[in-house]
Every structure is written in C-alpha cells, then in structure tokens.
C-alpha cells in the first residue's frame, strides 16, 4: 500500500479557512435571495437607527412642555406635531422606540435563554418534564395580558417590571417549542451513539441536542420579540406599563386616545411604528425559518 504523506498543519488551516469562507459566501447569497428576510432586516435596521439617531437630531427633549403650542399639527418645527402638553411628538416617539424595542429585545433574550434551559432539561429528564410542563400549562391557561397585568399590579409600574411580566408570560411558549424539538432529537441514533461512548448528560444536552434545536428557537424568539412589543404597548395603554411621563409607544397612544378626533397625529405615528416593528419582526422570523430549514433550500436549488 502506498504511504500517503500526511496533510501538513498549515495546509489544514488553509483548508478550514477556505471551507468556512465558502460557507459564509453561500449564507450571504441565501440571505440576499430571500426577499422576506431582507425586507424584515431593512425595516429593523431603519427602526434601530430611528431609535438611536432620532433623539439626536430632534431639537426637543421628550419631556419639554410648551403649553402655548399644545396639539400643534405636524410642521417643519415639530415633524410629528405636539401632544396635549405641547411636547414634541417626534422626540417622544423616538424615545418611545428605545423603550418599546428595548423591552421587546430584553424579553426576547430572557425568554430564549430561560425557555431553552427549561425546554432542554424537561425533554431530557422525564420526571422533571411532568413538573415543569404542568407549571407551564398553568401559566399558559391565563391570557398573556391578564397575567402581565397581575404581575405588574404586584411589582409596580416600572419598565424593568414590564420586562419581567412579559417574560414570565412568554417563557412557557418558548420552553414548549424547545422541548418538542428536543424530544425528537433525543430519540435520534446519534444520541444513542453518544450514550454508547459514555458521554455525560451535560455533553449530550448542550453539545448534541442544543445545536439541533436552535433554529426553531431563533424563529420563535423573533415572534416573541414582536409579541412583547405589542404586550408592552397594551400594558402602557392600560396604564399598567411604563409610567407617565416617560414615553413609550403604548402610553403615547393612551394620551392620544382622548384627543383622537382633533389630533390624529398622536395616534397615527406611534401606531404606525408599532405596526412597522411587528411587521418587520414577523417578516424577519418567517424568512429566517425558510433560511434555517434545510428542506426549503431555495437559494441552493437556483
């Protein structure tokens, strides 16, 4: 038998780089050929820029009262008009974007991490599964908004508490998704193969089950992000969310409700931003699901 020369180390490193580069190019190509995810990302980038640059380019602060200029129509000075205290609406909507999207993002990250841990361990240990899933059944039996209001009533109106309330309401949903896909993965032969090697349950859960449940998790989390924005707005609108006078899209809507017949701008602008944020996240999530699902590999087939 011929004795082949072993591959040199530097050759190998170059090889790894090539393959990773090739994969990256493919991923970029697939990203750009998926119109849904592209549209979602463009809208999200726009919203993020608006939240961070908006307050900088506005010459008013969101709390600056100008009673002489109450309920002014959108003009060159006040781009989105003013509210019933004469505060600049553009500045308030931009600051509200920070609050609303900040709450949404925090909820998304927290539910993802906690839901993932709960889902993975529930799927792996069936005794734990019974306990955790009954608790999540109980939590899911309440409508999200009622559960969140109850928690807010206990904790008090604070932006941090909004995050806690919405997170608690949404963890069961994420945990269920992770659990159901982990249950499928757990029965795969490659998990049995790892068990035959004597792999620890830590290794099996985190190194083998987790990577295979990440795609449904990411997709679900983008929806939770969107729902969290709606829930935050709803809570603030009901007066159980971010307390006045701090702006959030929800409590700007609440202020606008009273004057809806004479100042359309007070409901239209924050409302439009909520719609845009939720639409962007849903588009992004839908597109991501197609991207991460190997069965709908459109870009590869072209």
């Amino acid at each position: 038998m011929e004795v082949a020369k072993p591959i040199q180390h530097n050759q190998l490193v170059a090889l790894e780089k090539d393959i990773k580069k090739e994969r990256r190019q493919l991923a970029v190509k697939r990203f750009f050929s998926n119109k849904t995810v592209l549209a979602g990302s463009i809208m999200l980038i726009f919203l993020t820029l608006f939240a961070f640059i908006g307050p900088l380019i506005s010459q008013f602060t969101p709390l600056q009262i100008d009673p002489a200029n109450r309920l002014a129509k959108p003009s060159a000075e006040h781009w989105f008009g003013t509210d019933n205290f004469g505060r600049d609406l553009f500045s308030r909507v931009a600051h509200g974007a920070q609050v609303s999207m900040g709450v949404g993002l925090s909820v998304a990250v927290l539910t993802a991490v906690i839901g993932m841990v709960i889902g993975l361990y529930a799927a792996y240990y069936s005794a734990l599964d019974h306990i955790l899933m009954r608790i999540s059944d109980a939590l899911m039996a309440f409508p999200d908004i009622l559960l969140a209001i109850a928690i807010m009533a206990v904790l008090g109106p604070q932006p941090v508490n909004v995050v806690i309330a919405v997170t608690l309401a949404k963890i069961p949903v994420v945990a269920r998704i992770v659990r159901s896909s982990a249950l499928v993965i757990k029965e795969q032969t490659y998990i049995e193969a790892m068990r035959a090697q004597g792999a620890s349950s830590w290794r099996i859960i985190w190194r083998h089950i987790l990577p295979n449940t990440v795609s449904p998790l990411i997709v679900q989390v983008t929806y939770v992000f969107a729902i969290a924005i709606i829930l935050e707005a709803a809570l603030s609108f009901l007066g159980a969310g971010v307390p006045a006078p701090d702006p959030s899209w929800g409590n700007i809507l609440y202020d606008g409700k009273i004057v809806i017949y004479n100042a359309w701008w007070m409901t239209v602008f924050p409302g439009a931003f909520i719609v845009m944020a939720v639409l962007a996240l849903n588009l992004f999530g839908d597109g991501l699901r197609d991207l991460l699902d190997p069965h709908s590999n459109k870009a590869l087939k072209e």
Partner: protein
Amino acid sequence: MLLQQQLDGKITEQKDTGTPLLQVRNLKKYFPITSPFGRLKGHVKAVESVNFDLYEKGTLGLVGESGCGKSTTGRSILRLIEPTEGSVNYRGKDLLQLNQREFKGFRKEMQMVFQDPHSSLNPKKRIGELIEEPMEIHKIGTKADRMERAMDLLKRTGIREDQYFRFPHEFSGGQRQRIGIARALAVDPAIIVLDEPVSALDVSIQSQVLNLLEEIQDEFKLAYLFISHDLSVVRHIADEIGVMYLGHMVEKAPTDDLFANPLHPYTKALLSAIPIPDRKQRRERIIIKGDVPSPIDPPSGCVFHTRCPFAMEQCKSIKPEMLQQSDGHQVACHLYN
C-alpha cells in the same frame, strides 16, 4: 502458497483461541408492560437466556427475523439497554456488575456501528469532530493528536482527508457508514457491535463496506458481533453464526458447518429461503406456517413448536437444552436428543 499460509493461520487462530474475549452467559432482557395507571401487566421477553463467546479477531453473526431480539442482545451487551439478568464477562470482568462510572472505562473497548447511517451522525457536526468526540470523551491525547488520528482514520476508511471539515449531509450513505466505522475505531476498541451495518445500503456499496470491515478487523485486531437478517451477508463475514428465534438462540455453529449441515428446523427453513441463481438446481423448500408468536406470551416448551413441521408431543411441554452435536455445533431441539 501465501493463501495456504493464511488459511493455516486462520485455522490455528480458531483452534488456539484459549480464553474468549467476551463471554455472554444467560443474558435476559424483559421489557415491562404497564397499564396507563402504572400497574404491571406483563413482560415482553425480548431476550431469553442467550449464551455465546466472542474471540479476538473472531466474528459472531447473529441472524433471525425482525423482533427476534438480536439487536436487543447487542445493545444489552453495551448496556444501552440494561439487561434483566445474566453476565457479560470481558477479559474476566463481569460488566453488568459495574456501576456506570466504572463501566465508562470499558465503553471504549466496545463500540457500535448503527444501521441507519443517516441518523447516526449528528447533522450539525463536522465529520472530523464526530470522529474526535469519542477520544475527547475518554480523554485520549491532545487536540492535535486527536485531529491527526481522525485524519488517519478517515483515510483508512476511504474518505479523503480534506473532507475533514464537511458535514454529514454532504456524504452518501456508504460514505457515512464509513465515517460511522471510523468513529467506532477512534478509541481503539477490542469489540465492535455491528447492528445491521449494511442493510441500509445499496448492494454494490454493501460489499465495499463489508470488505472494509474485514480489512480493519485484521489491522485493528477486532472482534465483531455482527447482527443481520441477511444470511448471505453473514455468511460472507462471520466465523460463527448464532440463529435466534423469539429471544432464544436455537442453533450456533461455525459458518461453513451451519450452511452445510443445518440442524434446527428453523435454520433449515431460513436457509431454504435463500434464492439459488441456478434454476435447474432445485431444492426442497421448507415453508413455515403462521406468524411469530407474541414475545409477551411465548409458547410453552420449545418456542418454535407452534410453527415447526417436525413438532413432537414433548416439544409442547419440555424446553430443549442447547446441546453440542459436533465440534462447536450446538442446537436446541428435541430431534437431536
């Protein structure tokens, strides 16, 4: 000349076996059946008193129709399923008496290759990582050592080394099975349990994988427990064959002996079902009637008596013992008492 030497070598190896590497005695696996309220309703008697020895560089084939307990036997030995009773002696140590921590050290001596090459490799891992993982679990070598060995094994099993960073879905079934074999070899085991390793592959690929298995058996001094339902495949690779029916081993014999002179009626029926390419050469087919009885409530006496064309009165009540008929040829049947 060379061939003769090899044959001589093989014969002396078989004779000069001495102590077996693995001794399985009285292995039983009963799966409990419980009602929805947790009440025990009975047992599925998947494996019932199986005995066999496995010798260094030897191959034992386990054959039988689906549901006869051959896979359960393989998995019980690796303790992927905890056996109900029995002993598995590896180099004089009873593996079933060890706790999980003690047993982990022995896991690297016994590896497994699975039937389905599509689900036995984690789709999210590069094949190099897959082969290195067993070494990582058993803390063998440094990262660089492991990588080098993974490369060696890939090359040895017929995968190009530069495929190291590829993912399993980029390979065909046969190639994936080769990767599965490379993974089993990674920790330098003494025994590999092959659970229908070629039945998911095309016939042309089957022979390639079987040849690879034979090559590495000599090279790595491996003992195989080869589980299959395909008699022609087992005939090709096994030194000794155990025939299983409904959890029982009914006949065990050296391969050539079994094919030349099958004793148990069930074995005869199985062998007569192998198609012969030559139309002129007719053979009497033994057709067994009915279905396999339920392992929850197996027949009394000889488990095969319900379908056996030669069943006698005593078969219904007395369970036949596994008795030696000629050198190494054992059968559990009242016809030969």
